[in-house]
């Protein structure tokens, strides 16, 4: 490249007017001729980083001193000519307006006669880099770390695809929100609580059954005791009453017999014709027949009434109504008992539907509507509660015993009603035969009219007496029938013995005495009540736990549905992981969700780490690595060991260059390593001897040479592609000893060949008297020295292709 600077006005600042197109250019001149200022101007012309703070006085002075000028660059790759017109004052004003550099800093900026479209276009064409020699190796390494931090900030972070990061963050956030709504642990605990409540209720049901069975057993024993007591007490009373009654009947029967005989004798004595006697005897037979029938019917009626539980013929209708009512209730209860299993199953089928509806938020919606009554509407929740109560009722007590008892009661009531139905016909029959008695007595009275009055009166009296005794006998027979019925109901004596034996055996089995039975029965009754109450409580717990478990299932199903159908989660369908599916059991769904959730939580954590990664590495480079190298207290340590290893590796690579190694470490140096903690370089000499040396201890000449490698290496890290680059090596000529110049020249030429777009400008202070050297040499060398002496005399600087003197 050839750089030409044409000044249109005198700005005051000295500048080098031309840098010729040599691969490695030597610019040598006295102090103050503008060597470094020219490089800085060219840095601005290439929009490369330059060392001015645009708000500083130095920047103002620099701009003012430039005046108006044109910089022309030719010999470029990918372009013929770059032309930049600058007005220093205008550039200063533009810099104050924009801060960072823009094309407005130039009056004109053209490439091959066409205005440049952007600074990026300029930067892609040309880069100007200045390497200062007055910086040490350690500082160079620190700057290298700083430069890496700068590149991360300027070139990596803006290129991260923040829209993609934002999209990914939104997707992860949506999924986290969805999966965050359930807790596997809580669901597991609630499921376990439901299972436990179910087990406890089953245990409670068993306990209640046991308690009720115990109560029934003791109840049965108590009934047996009571029965025995009844037999013993009431049976004796009945026996006594029957004995008395039998005696009374026998007495009345005897009186009746006597009365009948007296009547017969009186009739025979009073009647004087055979015909009348025959008629009287006929009337008498009619009477006896009718009286016997009345007596039998009275007996039968007493037995029927006793069996029907009716004490009085006047209460028959009331008794019938009562029996029919109880029979209807008994029959309904019997149907209910028969239906309990079926109804329990029906409720078991309905309850999950009700619970699911409640879980879906429909709990307060009306489900049933009554035509009238205080509860016109039944909500889903209310119906669910009613079903639970009914289910508990059906579960509470075994019904077989009640069913057996009920069957007997129904049969008894039916028999009683059948008996009641017989009462009316019996009464009618008895009334008919009583009328026949009256007829027979009336006939006898009519026949008496054929006798004298005294005889007739006597017969009338005897017949009245006999009738009274007949009626009394019928009455007593009826009473005996009632007592006999009651006595028969108590059982025969052998039955009593069997009952007593059975009671003794059962009490023995229970380990109880008859005296302990009442207390035990009370305790069993209380225990059954307690178990029933406990079961009610357990049922409430189960219902609550089961409802919670059902809600969990519904929530789980909703999450799975959302993952399957919501477009926000479409991206997870391509994940190489088993996702929960609607057809899976809740346990499987939960396992798949847990796996996904765990992955998501880790992904979120990594995402957050990635977000802070770049700032962390920047801090690690600047506030950690750089600070440490500069002897400052580090304030960041993000990945510091890794960063240090990287920089050590970079430094090692400089010293591993064969030319550098030979120059600084001697021939045959191997196993080179750099330790930035101790700031030492270590290697093995050709003889295999381990050597090391502090980096700071390298001589100034050695430092400058190594430093040059380092700084050029730093430039090679630039990631942005640029077609042409001018590298100015400034301010270190004084440190490069003459004996190192040869190696430096070789190294720069080597660099130039491997970086064809680069041109190197080596800036050196004038340190030799070239006129004297010309006089001391001959031939081409003398001629060169004379040209150099003349250039210095004319311009105070000289420019030539770099070569070692």
């Amino acid at each position, binding site marked *: 490249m050839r750089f030409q600077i044409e000044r249109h006005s005198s700005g005051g600042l000295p500048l080098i007017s031309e840098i010729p197109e040599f691969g490695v250019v030597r610019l040598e001149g006295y102090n103050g001729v503008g060597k470094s200022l020219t490089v800085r101007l060219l840095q601005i012309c290439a929009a490369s980083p330059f060392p001015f703070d645009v708000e500083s006085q130095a920047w103002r002075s620099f701009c003012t001193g430039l005046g108006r000028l044109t910089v022309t660059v030719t010999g470029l790759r990918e372009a013929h000519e770059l032309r930049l017109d600058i007005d220093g004052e205008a550039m200063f004003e533009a810099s104050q307006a924009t801060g*960072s550099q823009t094309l407005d800093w130039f009056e004109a900026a053209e490439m091959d006669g066409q205005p440049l479209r952007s600074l990026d276009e300029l930067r892609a064409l040309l880069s100007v880099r200045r390497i200062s020699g007055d910086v040490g190796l350690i500082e160079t390494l620190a700057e290298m770390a700083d430069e890496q931090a700068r*590149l991360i900030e300027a070139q*990596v972070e803006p290129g991260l695809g923040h829209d993609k990061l934002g999209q990914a963050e939104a997707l992860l956030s949506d999924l986290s929100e969805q999966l965050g709504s359930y807790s596997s642990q809580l669901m597991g605990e609630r499921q376990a609580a439901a299972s436990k409540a179910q087990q406890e209720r089953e245990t409670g049901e068993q306990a209640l059954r046991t308690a009720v069975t115990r109560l029934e057993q003791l109840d049965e024993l108590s009934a047996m005791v009571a029965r025995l007591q009844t037999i013993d007490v009431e049976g004796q009373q009945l026996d006594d009453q029957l004995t008395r009654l039998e005696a009374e009947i026998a007495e009345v029967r005897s009186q009746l017999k006597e009365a009948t005989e007296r009547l017969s004798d009186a009739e025979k004595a009073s009647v004087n014709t055979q015909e009348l006697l025959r008629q009287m005897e006929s009337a008498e037979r009619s009477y006896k027949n009718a009286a016997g029938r009345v007596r039998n019917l009275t007996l039968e009626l007493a037995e029927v009434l006793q069996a029907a539980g009716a004490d009085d013929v006047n209460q028959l209708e009331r008794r019938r109504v009562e029996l029919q009512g109880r029979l209807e209730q008994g029959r309904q209860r019997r149907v209910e008992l028969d239906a309990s299993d079926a109804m329990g199953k029906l409720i078991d089928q309905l309850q999950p539907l009700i619970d699911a509806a409640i879980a879906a938020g429909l709990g307060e919606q009306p489900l049933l509507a009554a035509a009238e009554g205080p509860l016109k509407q039944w909500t889903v929740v209310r119906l669910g509660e009613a079903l639970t109560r009914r289910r508990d009722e059906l579960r509470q007590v075994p019904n077989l015993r009640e069913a057996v008892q009920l069957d007997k009661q129904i049969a008894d009531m039916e028999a009683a009603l059948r008996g009641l139905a017989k009462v009316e016909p019996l009464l009618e029959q008895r009334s008919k035969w009583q009328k026949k008695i009256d007829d027979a007595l009336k006939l006898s009275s009519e026949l008496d009219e054929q006798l004298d009055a005294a005889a007739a009166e006597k017969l009338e009296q005897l017949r009245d007496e006999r009738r009274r005794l007949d009626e009394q006998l019928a009455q007593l027979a009826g009473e005996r029938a009632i007592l006999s019925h009651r006595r028969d109901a108590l059982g025969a004596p052998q039955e009593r013995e069997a009952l007593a034996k059975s009671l003794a055996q059962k009490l023995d089995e229970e380990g109880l005495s008859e005296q302990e039975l009442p207390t035990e029965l009370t305790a069993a009754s209380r225990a059954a009540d307690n178990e029933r109450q406990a079961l009610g409580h357990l049922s409430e717990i189960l219902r609550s736990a089961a409802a919670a478990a059902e809600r969990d299932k519904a929530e789980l199903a909703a999450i799975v549905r959302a993952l399957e159908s919501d477009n926000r989660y479409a991206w997870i369908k391509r*994940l190489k992981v088993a996702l929960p599916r609607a057809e899976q059991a809740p346990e499987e769904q939960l396992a798949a969700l847990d796996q996904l959730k765990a992955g998501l939580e880790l*992904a979120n954590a990594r995402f957050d780490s990635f977000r802070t990664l770049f700032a962390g590495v920047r801090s690690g480079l600047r506030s950690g690595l750089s600070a440490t190298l500069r002897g400052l207290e580090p304030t960041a340590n993000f990945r510091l060991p890794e960063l240090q290893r*990287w920089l050590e590796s970079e430094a090692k690579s400089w010293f591993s260059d064969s030319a550098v190694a030979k120059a600084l470490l001697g021939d045959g140096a191997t196993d080179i390593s750099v330790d930035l903690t101790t700031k030492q370089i270590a290697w093995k000499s050709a003889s295999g001897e381990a050597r090391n040396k502090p980096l700071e201890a390298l001589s100034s000449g050695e430092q400058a040479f190594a430093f040059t490698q380092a700084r050029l290496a730093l430039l090679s890290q630039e990631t942005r592609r640029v077609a042409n680059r001018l590298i100015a090596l400034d301010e270190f000529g004084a440190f490069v000893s003459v004996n190192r110049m040869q190696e430096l020249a070789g190294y720069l030429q080597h660099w130039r060949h491997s970086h064809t777009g680069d041109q190197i400008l080596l800036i050196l202070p004038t340190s030799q008297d070239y006129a004297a050297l010309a006089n001391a040499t001959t031939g081409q060398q003398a001629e060169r020295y004379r040209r150099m002496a003349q250039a210095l005399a004319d311009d105070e600087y000289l420019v030539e292709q770099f070569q070692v003197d």
Partner: protein
Amino acid sequence: MSEASPISKPEDIPPALAAVLTEFERALLALLLDPEADGDDVARRLVEDALSD
């Protein structure tokens, strides 16, 4: 003064950063620089890598 030309491919990653990236971070960075990839791909890569651990 700094240049502002964002990198567009993984090879442009500054060496200090490249030296300290984990394999996962490197892959994610490559995905962010890939013009064919979108936010779905980034989220999926994050979750899949987490699940594979």
